[in-house]
């Protein structure tokens, strides 16, 4: 089992993944392969299961009561739902950014240094380096380098969201999950995050859930369309938006429902 991910080149896969919220069957036989160093977009109408699927990738659904899953979710060939998996370590490898920016009520510096510190890095110089590197990777350094010790809450919404991305990057993840990362931002802040997603794929794998189809079309390499808990179609982004195979996908991306 360990080597089967290398065979198809995927970093993250699911096989017949099912998820239930109590009685509700929220994910139905989802099988997907996420290739490394790509941006993958998940689209679909509200309640289709795209955020649920995203949260499966770093076991955020564990925190919801009454959730059952079956099937496999494999990160680099290992089932992340296996008993021996260290969930904290998993979430370090597979980080997450949420819809609303949620910085800690601390300084900009502390927001970034917090994660590395609890993972055992105490050296001031090493932390300084991580803060600078993470902020640079999140395209925020130039805007905040002279006020690192000011409260993060004083930043604009778009800056806060990039700070959250920098915070995710500080613990050196391999995959970054983004759940509607731009829906609370204005168009300029949105386009900065979109540029950032494209830059990030050089070193990371990005999976983004979005309601904004133009955004999915702009930033992603591959797109999955979900409907009523099923992954209806998954493929090259240009193909999905120009000549989808499934009638249902066509109807969704042309705005006939959703």
């Amino acid at each position: 089992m360990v080597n089967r991910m290398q065979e198809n080149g995927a970093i993250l896969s699911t096989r017949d993944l099912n998820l239930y919220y109590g009685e509700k069957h929220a994910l139905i036989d989802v099988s997907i392969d996420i290739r490394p160093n790509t941006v993958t977009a998940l689209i679909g109408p509200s309640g289709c299961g795209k955020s649920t699927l995203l949260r499966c990738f770093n076991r955020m659904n564990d925190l919801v009561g009454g959730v059952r899953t079956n099937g496999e979710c494999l990160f680099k060939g290992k089932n992340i739902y296996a008993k021996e998996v260290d969930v904290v370590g998993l979430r370090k490898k597979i980080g997450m950014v949420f819809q609303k920016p949620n910085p800690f009520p601390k300084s900009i510096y502390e927001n970034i240094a917090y994660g590395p510190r609890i993972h055992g890095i105490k050296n001031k110089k090493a932390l300084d380096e991580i803060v600078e590197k993470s902020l640079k990777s999140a395209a925020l350094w130039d805007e905040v380098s002279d006020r690192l010790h000011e409260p993060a809450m004083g930043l604009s919404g778009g800056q806060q969201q990039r700070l959250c991305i920098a915070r995710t990057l500080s613990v050196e993840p391999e995959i970054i999950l983004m759940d509607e990362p731009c829906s609370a931002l204005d168009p300029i802040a949105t386009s900065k995050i979109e540029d950032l997603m494209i830059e990030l794929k050089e070193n990371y794998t990005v999976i983004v859930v979005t309601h904004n189809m133009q955004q999915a079309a702009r930033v992603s390499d591959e797109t999955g369309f979900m409907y009523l808990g099923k992954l209806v179609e998954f493929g090259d982004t240009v193909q999905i938006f120009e000549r989808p195979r499934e009638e249902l996908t066509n109807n969704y991306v042309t705005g006939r429902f959703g």
Partner: protein
Amino acid sequence: MVEKFYEELDELKAEIPMFGAFAIGMLEDSIKALKNQDLGLAEEIRERKANLAAHHTRIEEEALRILALYQPMAKDLRVIACINQTNYSLYRVGRIGWDIAKLSMYVAGQPFIENLQNIFYMGDLVVAMLRDVMEVYESNAISSLLGLSKRDDVVDNLRSSIFRECLTYMMEDNRNIPRCIDYISVSRHLERAGDHACLIAEKIYYMNTGERVEIR
């Protein structure tokens, strides 16, 4: 919003057959003017040029406006892509009619060669190809489009036989030279118009299926 979009897209889509009738009409009439040496008709065709350009621009502007405002996707995007190409091709067809009308005025006073009928036959074939393609644009009966390649081959072959025929007439009697030279140009124009029928057919096929095929 979706309803408004589809109303506007449908209106735009319906412009193409109207523009097609106008542009193909210019081509068909220009062949008539050439055949009947009808200077009045030729002059009248030349005056249609401004309307042709205005209609073409109007469709293009509307297509761009819809792209900018609604960012259509999938089939809707392919409809716009097809409209844009068809709009351009039809404009060229109209311009070819305009060019042939101009040539027919030059040769009106020159000796007519009764036996040189292939040029009119070629014109009829090309007009029929264009009309049939525009019919598929409305009916979406795309299977018939693939047969267009063969018809285009006939048109291409006619062009070379017209060339050889004209050479013979020019060698026979040098008074035939002006008319024959113009017929050779006309056959070149008609061949291009046939190519546009094929281009439009490719786009209609793509609009309906998302697949690119080569029809030529």
